């Protein structure tokens, strides 16, 4: 074993501080009163307004219509994140399956066409997408929020590479065992892809969770507001002598952090288990 040097530890400790202090700051500041934050800046010590802030943020009805709670926004964000991740996994797995296992003409060209869309982020096609959704009457629906973003070049690419690494003999054995295309997919490929699915779930969940621009465009009805929009709208109340509720913004930010952390922690375990269990 290599000797552990004090310098290594120092570097690590600095890194940990660098990453953790802002989080701690947000958490601590969320337990103070907005006035204190406004006059004293951020806090690194707990205040006594914590319980009240979080209760208010989660249950207080706000917005123009006066019935959007933090809980509602949390739920909307969750629907976005999970819908995104699951939808993308299902869609890209099926696309990759078709590309790898079915001999149809232009498969390679199609793949590269899908692949080049990696170069085109959502922002490039946001207006046409909006137009389509609006024509279909899907503004202010979960369908409209989620479906247009489901096609995933990244996911398709990863699953394609993974399927290509599955030995052909496995398919042949399955064919001899009487498994048709659908059965082979469900009985063999899906269980083998668990690790890949976990990895892509993590990435896509966070991607969906963090969406800001698209929900902003797609939803005018406050019932579909996500946490990201909620935080923004708290900070937008700077009119006259009114101070934004900094503590609430911080509380929402902290809340917004929890589900992605939970997803990473849960799936990471599966992810590592998958990695160490498979012998390929």
């Amino acid at each position: 074993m290599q000797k552990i040097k004090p310098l290594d530890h120092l570097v690590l400790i600095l890194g940990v501080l660098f990453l953790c202090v802002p989080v701690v700051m947000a958490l601590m500041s969320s337990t103070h009163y907005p006035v204190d934050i406004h006059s004293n800046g951020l806090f690194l010590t707990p205040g006594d307004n914590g319980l009240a802030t979080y209760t208010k943020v989660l249950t207080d009805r706000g917005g123009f219509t006066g019935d959007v709670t933090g809980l509602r926004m949390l739920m909307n964000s969750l629907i976005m994140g999970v819908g995104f991740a699951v939808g993308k996994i299902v869609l890209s797995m099926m696309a990759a399956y078709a590309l790898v296992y079915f001999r149809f003409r232009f498969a390679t060209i199609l793949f590269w066409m899908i692949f080049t869309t990696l170069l085109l982020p959502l922002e490039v096609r946001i207006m046409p997408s909006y137009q389509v959704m609006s024509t279909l009457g899907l503004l202010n629906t979960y369908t409209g929020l989620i479906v247009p973003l489901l096609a995933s070049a990244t996911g398709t690419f990863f699953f394609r590479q993974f399927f290509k690494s599955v030995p052909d003999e496995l398919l042949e054995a399955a064919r001899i065992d009487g498994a048709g295309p659908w059965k082979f997919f469900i009985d063999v490929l899906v269980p083998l892809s668990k690790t890949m699915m976990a990895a892509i779930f993590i990435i896509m969940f966070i991607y969906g969770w963090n969406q800001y621009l698209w929900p902003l465009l797609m939803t005018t009805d406050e019932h579909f507001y996500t946490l990201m929009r909620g935080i923004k709208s708290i900070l937008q109340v700077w009119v006259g002598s009114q101070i934004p509720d900094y503590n609430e913004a911080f509380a929402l930010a902290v809340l917004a952090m929890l589900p992605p952390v939970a997803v990473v922690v849960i799936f990471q375990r599966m992810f590592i288990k998958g990695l160490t269990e498979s012998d390929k």
Partner: protein
Amino acid sequence: MAGLSLQGVGKTYSGNVDAVTGVEIEIADGEFIVLVGPSGCGKSTLLRMVAGLETVTRGEIRIGDRVVNRLDPADRDIAMVFQNYALYPHMSVRDNMAYGLKNRGESRAVIDERVAEAARMLELGPYLDRKPRALSGGQRQRVAMGRAIVRQPAAFLFDEPLSNLDAKLRVSMRGEIRRLQRRLGTTSLYVTHDQLEAMTLADRLVVLNGGRVEQIGAPLEVYRSPASTFVAGFIGSPAMNLLDARVEGGRVVLEDQAIGGAELPEGPVTLGLRPEDLRLVQAGGLALRLDYVEELGAQRILHGFVGGQPLSVAEAGAAPLSDVVRVAVREDRLHLFETRSGHRIERAGLAAMEPAE
């Protein structure tokens, strides 16, 4: 259970690659047929056409009395054992074996019974609930066999099933496969490039060369009268010596030395001599200039030159050797081949003559 019949079977891959051409084989019910040949000669292609994993370009394949050319692999009533076993990594040994039966819609009771039976036969009982990754190579091989057995197919197809195993295990698995096949009496088609495996397993050998059948016959028959120089060089270890000789005045002459009679037109022939048919003698015979000696324990193999041509001799002795030894040829063990085509010239053409000792 059923026989197998291949009629004029050929395969052309895209790009006009002729992998297999005009293969005619009739396989009786319960027979163990080994397809043998060097790498790239089309063994796997032929087997995969029988399995239905590759389309048949020409000809007709029958299993029993059904033409199966257009049937799905699952409907052909065959089972296949792959070189890399191709076990489903995420399923237990039990599920691996049961999967095909489940897909066929067999009842739970039948599946359990067949799996238990196969596990007993293959001594896999203790491993039934393990995943393949927790098994040794030999055990995985047995699971792959088990998966084939539980289906009770009309034919087993094996594609080099033992080549991932170490030498010792290969020998014992070889015996096991043979015993199992005898016991079940299932028609089997077995691909290997290992001529020893081919000799020991087969009821009949099919020697393939460049996609064509070179010879079909019982192992000893193929060993004793190879149909061509190709078969002669391929079957038997160490390989048969193939030497350029001439027929002159009714005698076969090798490097100015007559070694046997032959009622053949004058001209060049290829002379085949098995190393194990040659003997060292004190005087007479051919002069073999020794190059090097391989000691195998039970025997040693002498490599050297007769005139300018390489020749090897297998010999059981341990006596010290001089630089030049004398080698006697048993005249009734000569093989003659046409030099141009490589075809065997039948022994009828060999007239009896006094041995060239």
